[in-house]
């Protein structure tokens, strides 16, 4: 944990500085490597092409398409994954019955499902959403199960002592107790969802940032490829920021270290 405290000014300038250095290193590499700018486009060329993509509206269109799929897949995974994780964490029987299946399916890469997904759902948003769901669902289930199992037993004694009903135990103990761990899990999972959406879009659909990257590669426009990568990175940065904000909710801040 970082214990030093810096002023907000330093905190907002520091990232700008590190990005400036990154761009500088990039530019220098382009100049001195001797590579063709078609193979390694420099920052300026990428910026120009980015503006081009923005003005034609295609960047916006692709970004929205990807965001749409990630959001759906991710929400569905959370909506089904968190309750299932709670059940597995609380019920011995459910965990004996279902855990082997979950751990059997978990290591199978979502990309291995692509052929099946295309056959089942055809071409379009659905197979991509399905793949993102698969990629996020298992990590969320496992993280929730672990979170429920590691709740301090004292809290359950308190619940028994104050005559909590089963419903109250879930509402007032289990759910609030796992929120900090869930936020961390979602923060990690959303990254996986982005990795998968790009891969899925390279195969199953005709839109999205993954499609933009693949299509540009086929046209040998590496500057467009880099535009796609930059947008994905920026969105990832922003999503992580939102997730960290969630951790600052006062009733959840007892269990979350800032990272």
């Amino acid at each position: 944990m970082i214990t030093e405290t810096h002023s907000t000014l330093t905190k907002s300038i520091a990232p700008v500085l590190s990005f400036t250095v990154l761009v500088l290193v990039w530019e220098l590499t382009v100049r001195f490597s001797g590579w063709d700018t078609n193979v390694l486009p420099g920052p300026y060329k990428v910026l120009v092409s980015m503006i081009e993509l923005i003005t034609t509206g295609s960047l916006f269109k692709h970004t929205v398409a990807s965001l749409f799929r990630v959001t759906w897949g991710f929400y569905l995974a959370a909506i089904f994954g968190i309750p299932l994780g709670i059940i597995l964490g609380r019920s011995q029987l459910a965990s004996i019955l279902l855990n082997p299946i979950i751990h059997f399916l978990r290591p199978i890469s979502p990309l291995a499902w692509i052929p099946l997904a295309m056959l089942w759902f055809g071409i379009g948003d659905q197979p991509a959403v399905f793949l993102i769901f698969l990629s996020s669902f298992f990590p969320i289930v496992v993280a929730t199960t672990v979170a429920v199992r590691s709740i301090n037993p004292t809290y359950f004694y308190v619940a028994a002592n104050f005559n909590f009903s089963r419903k109250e135990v879930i509402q007032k103990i289990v759910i609030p107790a796992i929120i900090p761990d869930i936020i961390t899990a979602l923060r990690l999972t959303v990254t996986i969802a982005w990795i998968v959406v790009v891969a899925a879009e390279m195969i199953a659909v005709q839109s999205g940032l993954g499609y933009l990257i693949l299509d540009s590669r086929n046209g040998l426009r590496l500057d467009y490829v880099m535009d796609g990568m930059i947008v994905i990175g920026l969105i990832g940065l922003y999503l992580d920021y939102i997730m960290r904000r969630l951790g600052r909710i006062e009733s959840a801040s007892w269990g979350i270290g800032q990272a």
Partner: protein
Amino acid sequence: MGHIQTENLCREFVNHRKKKDEDGKFLPDEKVSVLEDINIEVEDGEMVCLLGPSGCGKSTLLRIIAGFDKQTSGSILIDGKEITGPSSDNIFVFQHSGLLPWMTVWQNVELGLRNMEEVEEKRVEIQEYIEMVELDGFEDHYPHQLSGGMQRRAELARALAVNPDILIMDEPFSGLDFLTHMKMREEVVNMHQFLGKTILIVTHDIDDALIMGDRVVVFSKRPSQVKMNRKLDFPHPRIVFNKQTELSQLRDELFLMLGVSYAV
């Protein structure tokens, strides 16, 4: 109401660590006896301090009384009835904070009163208990925003708000700094004189037991038996030992009993 009686109370644990005999065969699980034939009676409204070496089963006894654990044999009656499970008549105050960290002080104190229908009445009552432990102004603070002593007081308020017959405190002052410890001790004594509830306190501190207890019960090493069960008929405040020779002698005796020969 708050009379407790144990008869030949025993508690054994099974040691699941497998041991092998000389031929390398696994021996059957070993049983460890923690409490052996405990016979104590706690009168209604009495404050009883339980002393004993670490690991002797004092906390186990408290957990059985709270309904969190069950005895292996023997019986334990509260107001003449067998314990069937945890109940808000016997509130347990945990060694490390038992406050729910995702709830404010107010919400924690509300736990025991959450089924009250009269909203205004409930509000007044919660406020009353928060003021009793001098936490007014901290109602909307979360436990991690409070000091250790304030956390204990908040938990005490939560326990008292249910109006239990028995308060069960497992080393309630451990981890507090010296002055906070003294102050909390004083507050518990005052609270006991004011409310007259039955209170069971497990402690390592002989002075706590002598200053607070109406009775002190000393346990032996495991398997625990009652080594001493003495009523302390001394008026409060009992601060200066050397002016109360009898208490001072008893103090030396207790130190010796717990294995310290030259107590300060």
